[in-house]
């Protein structure tokens, strides 16, 4: 063969399936997350909530134990959607926020800062695979501390409660999954968008925290000055409370302060947040970078 014919030729062999390429990013990002011992400790502390609730449900249905603790069973709160929303979903939302605050804003910025994007995207990985791979880490870890233990608790209660409890409360597993996944995905994408805009991990975390804190306070102030629910549009926590209450069919008086905002608006809020963050991410994640 003539030497001029030995030029560069792209790989023409078989490619691995697209999902397995995405899972490579997921695997490495997951390994990075678990390098922090502090995060590992936090993660296991998050699981304690479900263990405590499991013990509570067991004791709730154990008459002998209740009598030993001198508790009258009739005085206990009924286990229904309100119970699951109040004791499980609301604390889990807080834990998910802390988890995403700890790892979300640090996932994209190192790749952009160190000019690694061209290396990723020159392989058969596109922007959506990259974002999905990173997102799967937070969805996986978030699911482990939110709706997966929620399902376990639901089936435990259904088994111990017996009768028609399962049939009467079928909205609970759907609500747990929908609320947790909505919260995880929207917060994670927001964290990624911040991470893609800010080069430093520390600053990205502060910006993410500041954005949510500011939105929350700003929403309260707008509601106080102008009245109505318009102010809650910038408060993502208010949208989450509305969504949780609606999906669990929970009693708003028991849950405390729930904004009187239509659930459709709350859904639109999350949708808008996701679209905006995806737009920012697709603009920032590029196969070429200007190295200064």
């Amino acid at each position, binding site marked *: 063969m003539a030497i001029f014919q030995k030029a560069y030729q792209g790989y023409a062999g078989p490619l691995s399936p697209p999902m397995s390429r995405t899972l490579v990013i997921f695997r490495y990002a997951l390994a990075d997350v678990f390098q922090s011992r502090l995060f590992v400790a936090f993660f296991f502390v998050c699981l304690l909530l479900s263990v405590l609730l499991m013990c509570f449900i067991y004791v709730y249905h154990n008459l002998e134990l209740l009598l030993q603790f001198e508790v009258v069973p009739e005085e206990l709160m009924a286990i229904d959607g309100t119970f699951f929303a109040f004791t499980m979903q609301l604390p889990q939302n807080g834990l998910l926020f802390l988890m995403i*605050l700890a790892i979300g804003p640090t996932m994209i910025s190192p790749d952009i800062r160190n000019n690694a994007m061209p290396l990723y995207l020159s392989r058969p990985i596109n922007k959506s695979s990259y974002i999905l791979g990173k997102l799967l880490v937070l969805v996986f870890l978030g699911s482990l501390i939110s709706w997966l233990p929620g399902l376990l608790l639901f089936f435990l209660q259904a088994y111990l409660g017996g009768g028609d409890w399962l049939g009467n409360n079928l909205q609970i597993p759907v609500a747990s999954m929908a609320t947790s996944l909505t919260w995880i995905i929207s917060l994670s994408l927001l964290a990624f968008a911040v991470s893609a805009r800010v080069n*430093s991990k*520390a*600053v990205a*975390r*502060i*910006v993410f*925290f*500041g954005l949510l*804190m*500011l939105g929350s*306070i*700003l929403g*309260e*102030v*707008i509601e*106080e*000055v*102008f*009245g*109505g629910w318009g102010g809650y549009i910038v408060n993502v926590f208010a949208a989450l409370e509305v969504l949780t209450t609606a999906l669990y069919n929970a009693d708003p008086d028991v849950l405390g302060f729930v904004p009187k905002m239509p659930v459709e608006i709350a859904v639109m809020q999350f949708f808008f947040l996701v679209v905006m963050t995806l737009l920012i991410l697709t603009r920032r994640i590029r196969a070429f970078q200007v190295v200064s």
Partner: protein
Amino acid sequence: MNTGEFVADNVKAPMLTPGLSLWFRQLLAIFRIEFGKALISRRAFACYALAALPVLIFAIAAFELDEQGEPPFESIERARQIYGYIFSSLILGAVIFLGSASIFTTLFRGEILDRSIHYYLLTPVRREILVTAKFLAGLASAFVLFGLCTLICFLLLYLPFGMEQLISDITSGIAIQQLGLYLGITLLACMGYGSVFMATGLLFRNPLIPIMVVASWELIHFILPPALKVFSIIFYLKGLLPIPLDEGPLAVIVSPPPVWVSIVGMFGLSIVTVLGTIFLLKRLEVKYTDE
């Protein structure tokens, strides 16, 4: 000594004789650099955006109608109450807090992240001068930004009522007294939060942790027992507000501290934390690879 030697000595050490004059010149030089960096840089954009938020709300509230079709500023008394609420919750609780966190954390932690702190540490400047100059520059820039925000919002309050009301309030002294108090609180808040965030910026590698801890503590201060309330900055600042605010049914009511206690408390906190920062900076060993 001949003339040549005398000139050579001055060239080697130009006006570096230790003393107040030198320290003051060094302080001014660092102040100028840091003040410029705090107000005119890409990082300062976030603070400008923060400061613009209350101004935007007041500008809208001056012309908008609420859900009952009434203007939110239906009377000047109501407008003053709304101003007090927005000042304590938004300006004090979010804008000054987050703005101070951004400005003062950047003073040292930002330099370490930018890998430029060694330029300061290699100059023949006492660490005390460096910390004081940086703190004063941060304080001045924060006060210029957030003081201006407070002032503009206060003036926007009078927009629906016209110049007559403003002149009447100025001549009767109400406007001057209230504006003075709000600006004073702004200065004390920048001082208190700023000194804390400057110290924590040097103490913690991840500045989010102290910011979150302080934010949570300030957020729950209203339900804290009186013995713990004294350890929050907002307790002293809210005591100075010209219009006392209702903090909700869960609030633990205590009498606000005397004005002099609030002022001395903020100055004391600033001095202690600045001294702490000097102590930390004297023992600072920069390893950029660890960041």
